[in-house]
C-alpha cells in the first residue's frame, strides 16, 4: 500500500515578517497570469490568496494550511473542495460561491471573489472560492513546488513546509539537546 504523505503547506515566521506585503503582491501576480506592472497598467484585478495580518504586535501572512481533514472540504455542499496531490484543491466549476468554506476555515484563509467586475448578469456574480493553491500552476517540470510568496519574501520569513523533513530536522535538533543533557548525568 502506498504510504500517505502529509500535505505541504506555507508557513511564516512572525519574528521575521516585516509586514511589507511583498508576498501578497507576488501571490496576486502569480495568480493573475501577468506581471505586476502590466497588471496595474491594464487594470487587471489583483487577488492575493494570502493576507498579511497584524494582531497586536505580531505580523504574519495567513494562508491555507492544506489541512489533512479539511473542514472546508467536509462542509462544501457541492463537493467542489477535495484532497488531491497532497493539497486541498477547489474545482471552480463546481463552486457556487456559497461561502460555507469561508465560515468553517479555522484560519480565515478562503475568500470568495470574481476574476472580473460584475458584468450586469442578474443570475451570477461569478464569485468563486479561492485560497492558496501552493502555486500549483507554477509547479516545475520535476514536480517541485515553486511558491511565489516564498520567493518574494525579502527576509525569508516564509517557508514551504514539507512536514516530514521539517519533523526530521526538529527531531535532530531535539536529540542534540537531549544528548547534551545526557553528558551531564
Amino acid at each position, binding site marked *: 500500500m502506498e504510504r500517505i504523505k502529509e500535505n505541504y503547506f506555507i508557513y511564516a515566521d512572525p519574528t521575521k515578517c516585516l*509586514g511589507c506585503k511583498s508576498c501578497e503582491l507576488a501571490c496576486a501576480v502569480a495568480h493573475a497570469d501577468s506581471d505586476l506592472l502590466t497588471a496595474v497598467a491594464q487594470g487587471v484585478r489583483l487577488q492575493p490568496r494570502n493576507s498579511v495580518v497584524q494582531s497586536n*504586535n505580531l505580523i504574519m501572512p495567513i494562508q491555507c494550511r492544506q489541512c489533512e481533514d479539511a473542514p472546508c472540504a467536509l462542509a462544501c455542499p457541492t463537493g467542489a473542495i477535495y484532497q488531491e496531490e497532497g493539497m486541498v484543491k477547489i474545482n471552480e466549476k463546481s463552486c457556487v460561491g456559497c461561502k460555507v468554506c469561508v465560515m468553517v476555515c479555522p484560519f480565515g484563509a478562503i475568500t470568495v471573489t470574481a476574476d472580473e467586475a460584475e458584468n450586469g448578469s442578474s443570475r451570477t456574480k461569478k464569485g468563486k472560492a479561492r485560497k492558496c493553491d501552493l502555486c500549483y500552476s507554477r509547479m516545475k517540470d520535476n514536480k517541485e513546488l515553486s511558491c511565489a510568496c516564498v520567493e518574494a519574501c525579502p527576509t525569508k520569513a516564509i517557508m514551504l513546509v514539507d512536514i516530514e523533513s521539517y519533523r526530521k530536522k526538529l527531531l535532530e535538533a531535539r536529540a542534540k539537546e537531549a544528548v547534551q543533557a545526557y553528558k551531564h548525568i
Partner: protein
Amino acid sequence: MSNKRSVDPCVDQLVPIANKEGIETVWDRYEAMKPQCGFGQLGVCCRICWKGPCRIDPFGNGPQRGVCGADAHTIVARNLIRMIAAGAAAHSEHGRHVALTLLAAGEGHAPAYRIKDEQKLRSIAEKLNLEPAGKDLKQLAKEVALASLEDFSRQERTTPCSWAKETMTTERVDKLCKLRVMPHNIDAVVTEIMGRTHVGCDADAVNVMLGGLKGALADYTGMYLSTELSDVIFGTPEPVVTAANLGVLKENAVNIAVHGHNPLLSEIVCDVALKMNEEAKKAGAEDGINIVGICCTGNEVMMRRGIPLASNYLSQELAIITGAVDAMVVDVQCIMPSISKISECFHTEVITTLNENKITGATHIEFHEDTALDSAKKIVELAIDAFKRRDNSRVNIPSYKQTAITGFSAEAIISALSKLDANDPLKPLIDNIVNGNIQGIALFAGCNNPQTTQDNSFITIAKELAKNNVLILATGCGAGAFAKNGLMTQEATVAYAGDSLKAVLTAIGEAAGLNGPMPLVLHMGSCVDNTRAVKVAVAVADKLGVDLDKLPLVASAPEAMAEKAVAIGTWAVALGLPTHIGVVPQVLGSSVVAEFLTEKAKDLVGGYFIVETDPKKAAEKLIAVIKQRREGLGI
C-alpha cells in the same frame, strides 16, 4: 500602539456617527493600512533612483546593499535628511510668502496688509543691523523684507543666515559654524540636501546627517523669520481668553473654519467676515458669522484675535462631520485631502486658496496678496450660500469646549515678568530656576499621530512634568491638545502644578492682572512659532552667560508625524536641547544613524534625541535630564 483613538470626548461622540453614515475617517484608514511596511518603518527602503526600489534585510539573511551598493546606514540617513529638507522647504516657503507680503506692504502693493506692530519692526531692524533710527515705516518694512529675503539668496557660503546668526547665543553660532552646519542660504541648503542625496553622492552616513543638521538649521531660519514678520504685519500676540474644541461651533451661525498654517489668508478672512456679519444674519444665521480655527492657521488667529480653536490635526475631519461647518478654508500643510471627500456628504464648502495646494473636489478661490480682500469676500459669500443649504437635522455639535488662555509670545511672557521686576524682567524667571521653584522648562511641539491615542501623550507627560515643577510651553497641535483638554486654564495650574511652580505662576499671574495664576501650559503659537520659545531661552542663556546646552531645557514631540516635525526636532537638538519623540522614527534600520541621533549628537552639539513611546516613562526620562542639567550648572 493603542486601541483608543483619542482622549478628546468629541472624537468618541462623532466617530460613531461617521461609522453609522459610512464615512471613513483617519482612524479607519490607519486600521486599513495595517500592517505598515516594516522596511519603511525602519527606513531601509530606497526609491531614490530607478534601479530600485531597494531594501535592506534587517535580519541579515537577505540583501545588505542596494543595487548601487548603498548600505542601510546610507539609505536611512539619506531618507531622513530628505524629510528634513521637505520640512525646511515647507516652513521656509511660508516664511518667504510672509516676507514678500511685507515687501509688498512696504511698496504699497498689498492694500489688505499694514504694519500692525511698529515697535517689533524696529527691533527686528536693529537685530538685522539695519539702523532703523529716523527711517519711515514703509521704507523700514522694505528693508527688513529685503534683508530677510537675502537669507534665501546669499551666495557667499561663509556668511551665515542673518536670522540664524542674530537669534542664537554667540557660542552656539561659533560651534555650528565650526561644524560647518550653519546655513548661509535657506534655498541653497534645501537644494544641497537634494543634491547630496542623489544617487551616487554623499554616502557616509555621519556626513549625510551633518547635512541634515544644516537643513534643520535652515528650517529654523525660515521659521524664525516667518513668525517675526507675521507679528509685524498682524501684531504680536498678547494673552487672550478664548475657547477650544468642537463645542465652539454655533448652530445658529455661519461657521467658517480656517485651516492650514498661514495667517496671510485667514487674517483677511477674519477682517472681511466681521464686515459681512449682517449678510449672514439676513441669510438666517441669528448669530452672524462664527470663525473657528483648525490646526495652526487656527493657532495663529487664536493667538492674535482670540478666535476659538475647533480642533487640532487628527480631528479635522470631525469638524465637517458635525454637519455645522459651512466652509472650511484651507491654505497649506497638514490638510487631509479626505476633507473634500467628506464634504460631499454634507453641505460644506471646502475652499482651497493657493495654486500650489489644490484638493480634488474642493472649490478653488485663487488668493494673492494684492487682491486678498476680493478673495476673502468671495470665500465668505460661498460660506453664507452653503449655510442656506445646511440640513439642520444632521447637525451634531458636541457640547465639549474648554476655556483656553492663549497668546504667550516671548514679548508677552517678558511683559508679564516685567510686572514683577520692571528693570530686569528675566530676573524673576532666572531666580526661580536657580532656587529650584521652577526645575526646568519643557517645550511641547507639533502633530498628532494615529499611532498614539490622540492628545494623550501630551496631557500625560505635561501633568507629570507640572507636578515636578517644570514650566510648560506649547505650540502647534500640542498647544491644540492642551487647549482642547483644559490645560491652558488657571484651574489646571491649581489642580496639576507642583507647589513651587504653582506659587511662581500665581505670583506672575497676579502681577499681570489675571486675578489668579498663569495657565498651566503657556500657548506660544502655531508650529512655525517654536522659535518664540527659543527667543526666551536664548535671552536666559545670554543673561546667565552659558550656552543653551547647559540649561535645564527640554523639548518633546510625543505625537510627531510631519516632515516639518523632523526638521524642528533636529534643530532643537542642534541648538543643544534634549528632545523627546514619542513615535518611533523611521531610522532604526541603521545603528549608525540611530546612534548619531541619540548619542553622537550629544558630543557635537549638546542636544540629542530621546525616543520613548510610553508617556509615563517619557516624563521620567525628561525629569531625569532636567535634574542632570541642573547638577551640571551646580544648582
